[in-house]
């Protein structure tokens, strides 16, 4: 009986194996019979920066291709300035554009694929992104045209060693523009060519916005310059800058020009221990950590109880509306600007992710400088005004003479008001003309 049972069990086992192997073979046969999925190559235009260098981006592409064998990424690395020209030409001509790219210029927005249907179809969780950046960076005419890659902001880095040597207390997040001036003067040591603060590159940065709602280039409806450019708040901001320039606490204009790196501010002066406070960004902050600098981070100084502003950014990555592969481009975009891609760039480069949950996994999330940076991101973004007023850049370019006059000491403090009043009609004319060329 026992023998029979064993025989039966053996036969059953053999049958199971036979059926199983037949089933498996059938499946294999079916898989072979199905048409192989065509490999799609996507064109991805990018640049390298403090936050993501070329090597880390190429490594990220390999990582993506491992899990997406049917999508190949042709990463085209362009110089930042060449990128704008190439994108504008391609999008304007309507041919030869990238499948996926940074949509970093407002005039390109109408050429980006609207993503709302894809987001809804895939139930893609947009709630994972910081709301402030989602709202200011991804929307155009009420539609979603891209996803926000990383976050960054201006911040004031201060050199603790220089502060300690001068016996000056460190600044705090609640500091004011008046305190900024006082600190800059105290910590400066012109005899040793050590400066307290840098010369700001232009007006209407975050500090201007901190002076009040009328410290703007023109009215919220983009119609009137009078009462904004020359408002008491704007005047106060200009006078503050005048005091800074006459304080003796800043490097010379020529020093700033030759020793600052274009577009990246006075990082070299700061790293060389010649500048006690410098308005830099989170990329510089991470480089300072790597270099072992003893530094702290605070937000830009405020004015009274006015809302605090920050010049913050996130890079909009979108899909060109002319792409031949919208599905594959969306697959790549979701991965690249989603948790996987941003975590990869955070771990392997200098990216601070725009996804809160990923940011919490940052290796130094408990460090003071990271906490300070993340706190700064909660301030009101200058980008809200900038995004709503694309003519601002043109108008601002028309008023730089006053900035030069203050920097070069060609004007007295009492003359600033008259200069601002005189600039109003000129700026108004530029605003009126600039609005005509807006495409939306």
């Amino acid at each position: 009986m026992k023998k029979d049972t064993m025989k039966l069990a053996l036969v059953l086992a053999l049958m199971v194996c036979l059926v199983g192997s037949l089933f498996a073979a059938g499946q294999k046969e079916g898989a072979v019979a199905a048409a192989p999925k065509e490999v799609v190559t996507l064109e991805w235009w990018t640049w390298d920066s403090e936050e993501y260098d070329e090597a880390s981006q190429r490594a990220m592409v390999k990582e993506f291709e491992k899990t997406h064998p049917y999508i190949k990424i042709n990463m085209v690395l362009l110089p930042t300035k060449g990128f704008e020209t190439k994108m504008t030409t391609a999008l304007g001509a309507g041919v030869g554009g990238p499948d996926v790219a940074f949509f970093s210029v407002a005039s390109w927005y109408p050429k980006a694929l609207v993503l709302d249907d894809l987001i809804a179809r895939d139930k893609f969780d947009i709630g994972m992104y910081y709301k402030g950046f989602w709202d200011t960076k991804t929307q155009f005419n009420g539609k979603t045209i891209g996803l926000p890659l990383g976050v960054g902001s201006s911040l004031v880095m201060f050199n603790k060693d220089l502060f300690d040597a001068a016996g000056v207390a460190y600044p705090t997040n609640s500091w004011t523009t008046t305190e900024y001036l006082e600190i800059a003067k105290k910590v400066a040591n012109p005899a040793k060519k050590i400066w307290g603060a840098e010369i700001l590159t232009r007006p209407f940065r975050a500090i201007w916005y901190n002076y009040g709602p009328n410290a703007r280039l023109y009215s919220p409806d983009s119609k009137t310059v009078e009462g904004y450019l020359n408002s008491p708040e704007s005047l106060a901001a200009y006078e503050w800058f005048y005091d800074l320039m006459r304080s003796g606490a800043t490097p010379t204009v020529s020093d700033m020009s030759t020793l600052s790196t274009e577009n990246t501010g006075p990082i070299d002066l700061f790293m060389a221990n010649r500048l006690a406070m410098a308005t830099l960004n989170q990329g510089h902050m991470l480089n300072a950590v790597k270099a072992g600098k003893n530094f702290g981070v605070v937000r830009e100084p405020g004015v009274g109880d006015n809302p605090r502003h920050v010049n913050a950014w996130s890079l909009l990555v979108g899909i060109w509306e002319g792409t031949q592969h919208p599905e594959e481009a969306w697959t790549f975009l979701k991965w690249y600007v989603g948790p996987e891609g941003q975590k990869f760039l955070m771990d392997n480069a200098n990216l601070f992710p725009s996804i809160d949950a990923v940011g919490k996994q940052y290796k130094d999330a408990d460090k003071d400088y990271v906490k300070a940076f993340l706190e700064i991101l909660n301030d009101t973004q200058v980008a809200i005004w900038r995004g709503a007023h694309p003519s601002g850049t043109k108008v601002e370019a028309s008023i730089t003479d006053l900035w030069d006059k203050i920097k070069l000491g060609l004007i007295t403090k009492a003359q600033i008001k008259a200069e601002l009043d005189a600039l109003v009609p000129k700026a108004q004319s530029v605003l009126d003309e600039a609005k005509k060329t807006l495409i939306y």
Partner: protein
Amino acid sequence: MVQKHVKRSPAAIKEALCGYISISPWLVGFIILTFIPILSTIYYSFTRWTIMDAPVWIGLENYIRMFTKEPLFYQAVRATSLYVAMSLPVIIVFGVLLSLLLNMKIKGMNFYRTLFYIPAVISGVSIAMLWTWLLQPDVGIVNTLLSYLGIQGPKWFWDPKWALPSVASMSLWKVGGSAVIYLAGLQNIPPQLYEAARIDGAGKLRIFFRITIPLLTPTLFFQLIIQMIEAFKVFTEAYVITKGGPLKATYFYLLYFYEEGFQHFNTGYASALILFLVVIIMLMTAAVNYTSKHWVYYEGEGKSK
């Protein structure tokens, strides 16, 4: 009046065809890369076009805006005109003087010629960066040397009064290139003329002004036009060093064009701007050409006709 119809022989037709085929690579290149873009630029100058959308015909509005509503236009014209006026004499006079030196028969002359020509093959951006440091007011070599002489140097690029002369003085760097052209002109002057003059008892200055300069005028004429066009196209120095400042002292025309065309993407307006520059250059060239009959001498012909 009856017109005679001349029938071409097959050989003549074949010859003409061969001619057209021979020049066709150039002709096709010219039509595609030059002629059509010129026509397009003329058309776009009458439109509002930001590249992203189709151009909108606005007639003369860009030109009206240029002349009546854009203060930056006049600042750019002023800075560029001053630059041309300052740099052109510098590059012509020093170019001729350098070529005279390079024409001397001394040992190692080929080395000196190469040495002075090197700057002409270095990128404009590198040269601009070099000059930034040379003329840095606090630590630059020029002001340091001046300080040894007890002279407080100016702030050069960072002073509205000195910025334009500073940029113009950078033209000195380029004289090696033009000196080589003058040198070729000098070497084409028949030596028997100098010999005859010396036998007649002419001094060095007299020989220079009565023989060298008159026989160099065809080269000077050519160089004047080329260098003038180059001067009108000044861009790199302002773009790299001064950004057009301070107080728009170096806000050159091409910088203005670049900002409008490639930063603000006002392509229609930028097209009008560049056409205006082309017209100005053509007028200036025509004026120089017109005056040439009074001062340019061609060997065996006297003054040019």
